[in-house]
């Protein structure tokens, strides 16, 4: 009996043991790396100065009458200046100078660079900046709902990257080496080798089923060796 179990444990693991090694390595990476660090929270400066409300001459009533149907209206700041950000009734995002009520143009390259430098916590220079405004240029790490964005890459071995919305000037997402590596670890952990998003794939199902069987055989062997060392169950 125990001989047969040992044989099945060995042969099953000969086929799928490598995946156990992969699960162990990727799992260890994901639990040891702080998720907030992975999400690049340390890359972006958080402490903002309060909004200069006394400079807000253009009121929300003004905004409401000039842009009826505006929704998700927020008073926020762009480079320390008070601005309104909202979604117009034609679903486009708008940015308005809260001092004058003037409609602000899309964030240009120079502004994007300024925003990036202003919010970046380190002093690295900027390695590249480019506008991504259509699906064909979309990198896999960016969701299409964020378009159009300025991609600003800093000159650092871990390639920290800010994605700055051209509509709002907000940093909509960021990436660095450890996040990108985390995504690969996740892919290998859930065994989805095409797009890395689908836990419900048949390959994982097959290997996890066989793996459970192999682990149960292993548990039997451990039980036998640790708790029944004197029984002679050769067959």
């Amino acid at each position: 009996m125990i001989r047969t179990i040992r044989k099945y444990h060995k042969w099953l693991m000969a086929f799928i043991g490598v995946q156990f090694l992969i699960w162990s390595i990727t799992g260890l990476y994901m639990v040891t790396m702080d998720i907030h660090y992975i999400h690049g929270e340390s890359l972006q400066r958080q402490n903002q100065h309060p909004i200069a409300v006394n400079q807000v001459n253009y009121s929300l009533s003004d905004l409401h009458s000039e842009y009826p149907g505006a929704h998700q209206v927020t008073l926020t700041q762009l480079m320390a200046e008070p601005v309104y950000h909202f979604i117009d009734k034609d679903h486009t995002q708008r940015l308005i100078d809260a001092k004058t009520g003037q409609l602000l143009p899309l964030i240009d390259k120079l502004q994007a660079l300024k925003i990036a430098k202003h919010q970046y916590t380190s002093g690295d220079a900027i390695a590249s900046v480019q506008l991504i405004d259509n699906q064909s240029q979309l990198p896999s790490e960016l969701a299409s709902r964020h378009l159009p964005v300025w991609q600003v890459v800093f000159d650092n071995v871990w390639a920290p990257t800010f994605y700055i919305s051209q509509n709002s000037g907000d940093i909509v997402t960021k990436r660095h080496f450890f996040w990108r590596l985390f995504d690969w670890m996740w892919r290998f952990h859930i065994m989805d080798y095409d797009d890395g998003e689908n836990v419900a794939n048949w390959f994982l199902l097959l290997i996890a089923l066989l793996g459970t069987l192999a682990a149960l055989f292993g548990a039997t062997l451990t039980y036998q060796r640790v708790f029944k060392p004197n029984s002679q169950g050769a067959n």
Partner: protein
Amino acid sequence: MFKLNKSLHKWLSLLVGLQLIIWLATGLYFNLMDHKKGSGNANLRPVAHTAGNLNAPLLPLKSLEFAPAKQVKLLWVLGHPYYQITHQSGIHSYQAKQVTLLDAYTGQKATINETLARTIALKSFKGSVNIISANLLQPPIAELPKHENPLWQVKLSDTENTNVYIDSNSGRVIAHINDDRRLRDLMFTLHFMDYFGTGGFNHWLIILFAIATLLLSMTGVTWLIERFKAGQLSFAFKSNKQRIKVIELAQQQTHELELKTGISLFDGLAAAGIALPSNCGGGGTCGLCKVRCNENTQMTDADKANLSNSKLEQGYRLACQHNTAEVTEIEVRSRTFNKPKNKP
């Protein structure tokens, strides 16, 4: 050296074995689960908050008194406008916030009160239900351990025991937690070993177990490589036969056997009806399956670890650590001795 590897494999499996099986079982659950149901959102529907028109002018922010703000949002709650003034907040919405709500028509301080919470909860639910209770909970909140802000919990009378959680700073529905969602959350707790309710997976217990599991996998792979080198992980498509003369000491009998090659002598003899004593089942750790071979037969690490020098010099070896092809004549003292099946 190799004895240490096996010993480590055994003790590590004892340490992490149960959790490893939990990881596999919960992993299978995530693979097979209905994600829509598991999210708890099966009965969730959006709540319309925004009104088309203003009933009165919105008070200018300049005319209001409030603490320094990093953001002011025009927040609609069930058709009424408020200024949601955020003084302090983290990157994620679940992190602790300092927020003031002011009525945008009157400038009065406002809160998401129980009446609003109850109405929002009912509106967010597909189908008709009754409310069992509504309570404003302070963090930590058992069913949403990550959240650091006070939340309204509205218990509904539906068959899935839905609790609607509503942000007390905004009136937004944070989650519908029903029995499907509770099952999913339990699975996450088990998979992340979050037995102390941190709400995440970056804690010392899982890190410790992850290190032990990596060592378990590494010792396992090392063991497999060792077995492969010993010729016991080969695909014996071309099954050769090895003719072996077996002298059975207990029965004082001699047999000429033809055993398959590419398997261990222990397994080969068992297949022929000669069961050697063993309690590790061929792992090379108990030292019971010894047989006497030609003294020149190569010694493996397991032989050296389990047998005395004098036994080794006399030609004793562990049958599970040698292939059938390595020997031509052996002496055995078997535990049971069935009639050999393949007499020449």
